[in-house]
């Protein structure tokens, strides 16, 4: 079985996180994030590590980890494609993009490819509604204005082990008439 531990540098960093709050319980979210960054998920054994590190009951850490959707309670693909299908994305073709990606990767939303490269999720509004349809990759980069060609390109980039580049938010001003 894999063993999950924080090293000395990480434990020092956790002390700094705790110092931002009046008590150590408040550090549970940032420390869960740290753990997920390091291990790729927060499976029960990782939750135990977080509980031990912060001297909290395991049940409390489980309660928090399970409440928030971005913590991966099980192993996910190397790249998680979070396709927004909410409101503005829905009416701008979000489901078409989701289905195109599902077809392309041969899996459904909620599943992971056999080689462990990709997971797909259909997610709620990501706060990029004006650039719909869009998706986020593994809790990180936003990819706006999706169409089939762009999806193809992004998946190609990811297959080469690279993240797509950060896209600045478009600055908008009305066209002066």
């Amino acid at each position: 079985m894999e063993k999950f531990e924080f090293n000395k540098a990480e434990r020092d960093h956790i002390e700094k996180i705790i110092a931002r709050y009046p008590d150590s319980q408040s550090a549970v979210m940032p420390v869960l994030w740290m753990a997920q960054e390091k291990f790729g998920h927060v499976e029960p054994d990782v939750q135990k590590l977080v509980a031990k590190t912060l001297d909290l009951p395991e049940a409390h850490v489980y309660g928090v980890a399970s409440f928030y959707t971005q913590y991966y309670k099980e192993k996910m693909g190397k790249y998680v494609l979070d396709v927004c299908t909410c409101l503005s994305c829905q009416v701008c073709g979000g489901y078409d993009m989701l289905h195109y990606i599902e077809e392309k990767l041969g899996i459904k939303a909620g599943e992971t490819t056999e080689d462990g490269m990709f997971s797909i999720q259909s997610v709620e509004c990501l706060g990029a509604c004006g650039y719909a349809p869009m998706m986020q990759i593994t809790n990180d980069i936003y990819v706006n204005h999706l169409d089939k060609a762009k999806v193809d390109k992004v998946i190609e980039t990811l297959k080469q082990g690279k993240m797509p580049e950060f896209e600045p938010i478009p600055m908008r001003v009305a066209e002066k008439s």
Partner: protein
Amino acid sequence: MQDWRTYEPLLIPSIKDLHKIDVYEKNGGYQQLKKVLSDKEQTPEAVTNTVKNANLRGRGGAGFNAGLKWSFMPKPDGGPRYIAANGDESEPGTFKDRMIFEYNPHLFIEGALIAAYAMSIDAVYVYIRGEYRSWITMMQKAIDDAYAKGYIGKGIMGSKMNCEMYVHMGAGAYICGEESSLMESLEGKRGYPRVKPPFPAQKGLWGRPTTINNIETLANVPLIIKNGSEWFTSIGAKGHPGPVLYGISGHVNRPGVYEYPSGMLITELINDVCGGVRGGKKIKAVIPGGSSTPPLRGDSLDGVRMDADSLRDAGSMMGTAGMVILDEDTDMVDLVWRISHFYHHESCGQCTPCRDGTGWLEKTLLKIKNGEGEIRDLELLLDICFQMEGRTICALADAAAWPVRYSVARFRDEFEARCKKSIYAVA
């Protein structure tokens, strides 16, 4: 009122690299913080009054006067006091605070510090939704730079003021945008909203006096301190003044975030600012301020302005000014079902009317959407809404009920048509 065509953005002015602290300083940045710290007349009470008189209404959805909210904080008793800045931004259709994180983070930081001065705050916690990782990095950099220059921390700008500022990263939960849920989340718990009273000013973060303000709300504060409350109330709509970040999405030619005075005509925003509806189609509906605000019919938009009063008269709300424009081809049943799916997914489950109600709304709408609905299901929907509204710990249940209630009322023909086609039609 100034013509919007000549309006120059103040929250997101087009100044290159304004997110960098030295550029921000060169453009007058942190001078308003300096002013309140050094000018003897700018007592905390005076600053609070200026903001109150400016009638700066919260940009997070509820539209409450920010200065008035600050004045609810009890007198300092020596113990810690907090601001929680709300950057959870998760109401579908809302995407404007992110603009401030990317293009003008220091304006927000300066506003938060002036608020901290006005309320004798010891620490500001900036709660940002976890999905905004790239923008959390930007905010953290801006905060680090402001610390390095002595704008945050101990003895701010050589004064006696001490204030810390920390970013707290959310992890995917819409409900954490509700202010008491946000505080629970900051305390390292599940984001269950608290029963009010006690209100946050009495018993907030870690049991101490706390004020929660939206990011855009706080970003307006330096502008008010600089130009005065009268100047602010002269911008845009009388009862709801100031600059507004309009996040416009859906079927328009140029969607995006635009800064204009409050009280813009909806038709002007669509036709003149966003270049009209895609493909020259007709508008079926407009959701004016995020998914919870009742959709307006496309044929009822004449003269309706984006401010609390005008929208109330038209039968909706300002919300977050996250407008979604829906063209004539939009399937309203599909749309409302998807909104219900969202609220069901995001209900924290504490209150039965909300936990079960959101589920029943979604299920019933799915049935109608799939062509298996009966006309009486429309009455059922309205009854479920009635069971939910005003009967829960927080306003999520109301937010879930309104779009359903008003869509069924305003687009009833479309819902009925879907039911009549159904195999179980009774009417």
